[in-house]
């Protein structure tokens, strides 16, 4: 073979070398997400790796903190400089973006892959508008776990986590007496909301929870059970330490990891922090949906895809939607993230004891409620959070005063 004969081969090789990065560049997706803590960024990396393996180019736009990301994403999408995809919480947070016509649907991918058959109804309804799927749901979270340190519980003379609130407070007193911080808290009003909703559902039950937050029923607020829940919430205040005010949620989790605090009330993403520290649930630390009624408060994450002008980038969005929802991505991501797969057709037996327990509880429709983000807009929830954080941080405020303030806010927002 002389050079003349070989030259087309060389030309092809050179072309290939030149063309590969160009082609890859075309399937670029700029993705905004809030996952910056140890466990979370490991989970985000799963998405990035799977997308890259599928031929895409992942441009990471991580912004620390849910609230900060929400502000930045809203700003960019409304301002006309949208990313390819952005994280949102499942529910109403992106509803107004859909109404404003700023988001595209992912219905073509969803129909061809049969998403509707494998997504739980509450979540399917939350992402469906006019029979079109408008966002890619990626996980199902349980928001009302108590994560506790086995060592702190043992050394304080508390055996298993108590199943009712009276025993729970007795246990918290023992933990305090043993010189530990009973309740690890951090993350400001964002985290205080989880404490509020957990106490509400566990003391008053799913029905009253929905009457208060969904129906905005003023009578429900006066119910003795709801008043009892607010009293329990008030009593819980004294078990957090003074450092809580300026602490981040994952630093609070770290207090439980390092056996400095007894427990933390937080969603299942906290498990990602324990995993990143090399801990196993059921061994060094435990999870429980008690005390009170064992109900799961469900929430989730989605990626919305803003409308883009560039056809190649739109194609990259389709690829991204396919990759995010693929069964193997779902398992790998959710193991790192600590949540459950949104697909109900994947096998969770490879997941940890907490995820399997959550899957068990979630089989019973009577033991699950959607989180407040399904029930009110960002504006409404923000106003509710303002009231919760005022109550939590004002020791002199009584349950009755809190109830009145909450009722006023619930009646005035949407």
């Amino acid at each position: 073979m002389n050079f003349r004969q070989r030259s087309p081969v060389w030309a092809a090789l050179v072309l290939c070398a030149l063309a590969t990065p160009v082609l890859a560049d075309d399937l670029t997706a700029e993705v905004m997400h809030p996952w910056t803590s140890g466990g979370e960024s490991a989970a985000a990396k799963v998405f990035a790796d799977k997308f890259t393996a599928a031929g895409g180019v992942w441009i990471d736009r991580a912004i620390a903190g849910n609230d900060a990301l929400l502000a930045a994403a809203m700003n960019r999408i409304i301002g006309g400089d949208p990313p390819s995809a952005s994280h949102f919480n499942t529910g109403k947070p992106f509803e107004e973006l859909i109404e404003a016509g700023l988001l595209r649907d992912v219905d073509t991918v969803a129909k061809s892959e049969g998403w509707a058959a494998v997504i739980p109804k509450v979540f399917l309804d939350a992402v469906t508008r006019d029979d079109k799927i408008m966002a890619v749901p990626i996980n199902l979270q349980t928001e009302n776990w108590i994560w506790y340190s086995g060592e702190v519980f043992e050394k304080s003379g508390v055996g298993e986590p108590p199943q009712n609130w009276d025993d729970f407070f007795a246990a918290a007193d023992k933990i305090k007496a043993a010189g530990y911080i009973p309740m690890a808290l951090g993350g400001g009003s964002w985290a205080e909301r989880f404490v509020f909703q957990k106490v509400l559902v566990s003391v008053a039950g799913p029905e009253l929870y929905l009457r208060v937050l969904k129906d905005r029923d003023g009578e429900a607020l006066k119910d003795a059970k709801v008043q009892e829940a607010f009293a329990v919430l008030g009593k819980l205040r004294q078990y957090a330490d003074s450092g809580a005010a300026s602490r981040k949620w994952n630093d609070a989790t770290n207090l439980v990891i390092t056996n400095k605090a007894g427990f933390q009330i937080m969603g299942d993403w906290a498990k990602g922090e324990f995993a990143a520290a090399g801990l196993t649930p059921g061994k060094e630390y435990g999870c429980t949906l008690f005390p009170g009624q064992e109900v799961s408060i469900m929430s989730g994450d989605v990626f919305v895809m803003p409308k883009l002008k560039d056809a190649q980038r739109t194609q990259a969005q389709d690829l991204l939607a396919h990759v995010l929802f693929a069964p193997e991505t779902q398992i790998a991501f959710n193991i790192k993230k600590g949540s459950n797969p949104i697909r109900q057709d994947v096998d969770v037996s490879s997941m940890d004891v907490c995820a399997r327990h959550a899957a068990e509880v979630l089989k019973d429709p009577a033991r699950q409620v959607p989180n407040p983000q399904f029930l009110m807009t960002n504006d409404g929830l923000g106003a509710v959070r303002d009231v919760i954080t005022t109550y939590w941080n004002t020791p002199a405020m009584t349950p009755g005063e809190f109830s009145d303030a909450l009722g006023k806010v619930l009646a005035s927002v949407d």
Partner: protein
Amino acid sequence: MQSKRISRHLPSFVAMLPTTLFVVIIYLGCMAWTVAISFTTSKVLPVARWAGATQYERLLATERWTVSVHNILIYGACYILGCLLLGFLTAVAIDQKVRFENTLRTIYLFPYALSFIVTGAVWQWIFDPQLGIEAALRGLGLESHIGILSSPGTAIAALVIAAVWQGAGLVMVMLLAGLRSVDGEILKAARVDGIPVWRTYLQIVLPELKPMIATSVVLLAIAVVKVYDLVVAMTMGGPGIATEMPAKFVMDHLFERGNIGLATAAATLMLLAVLAVLVPWLHLEYFRKAKGGAR
């Protein structure tokens, strides 16, 4: 005559035109737009649906807003007075012909070169019960429960301390420049007459510094109205809503909470508050000047 004057001023008119247009369209235009939006039902996106005063009604019934207004009054008064006092004292101290004056001046002015975010983060660490002063005291075996950032009553004091630390240097530099322009002969005469030093400063020097103090107050007041980053870096408005500020209320509702109508209503009230201070002051200033010119 008339046409001659116009042709003489024409170049300066032309030169000023871009700036004038910029100010009118960007500043005044945006202000007008903001006020207009506050009377609509706009949520995530601006819409032209008339809402009357409902946004204002909700705003004034919102505890977080009333707390914010209350907070900025306390913060503003303490910050401006604190900066003036500390700035004046350091300026007087440096004016005593001390050695290393340049070095000291740089050190005192240095905090002003930092952004509020950096200032806030540093002071948050200093006040953090697990990291800062309190942890150090406990390390020495002392029992301490200051918790300045964790108690709703005192968190705003922490903000003031951090802000004064940052702003006092600017006041010092301006007052120092003023002190240098005070006639030395007057000071000498006062000393010869046996007037105590503190009275010399209070009754002779201070009145001379009036223009510098006025400028300082204006600069500090602007910093007060727009305080946002310091709060975000230090307390996030907490504990609870104890350190919320009007600008943060506007920013939170503008994006994160997606309620432009309520956010612009709050912004409009902030504008009115600034105007309420500014208009009488401008009027007084120009009125006095005009009178002075006639004399």
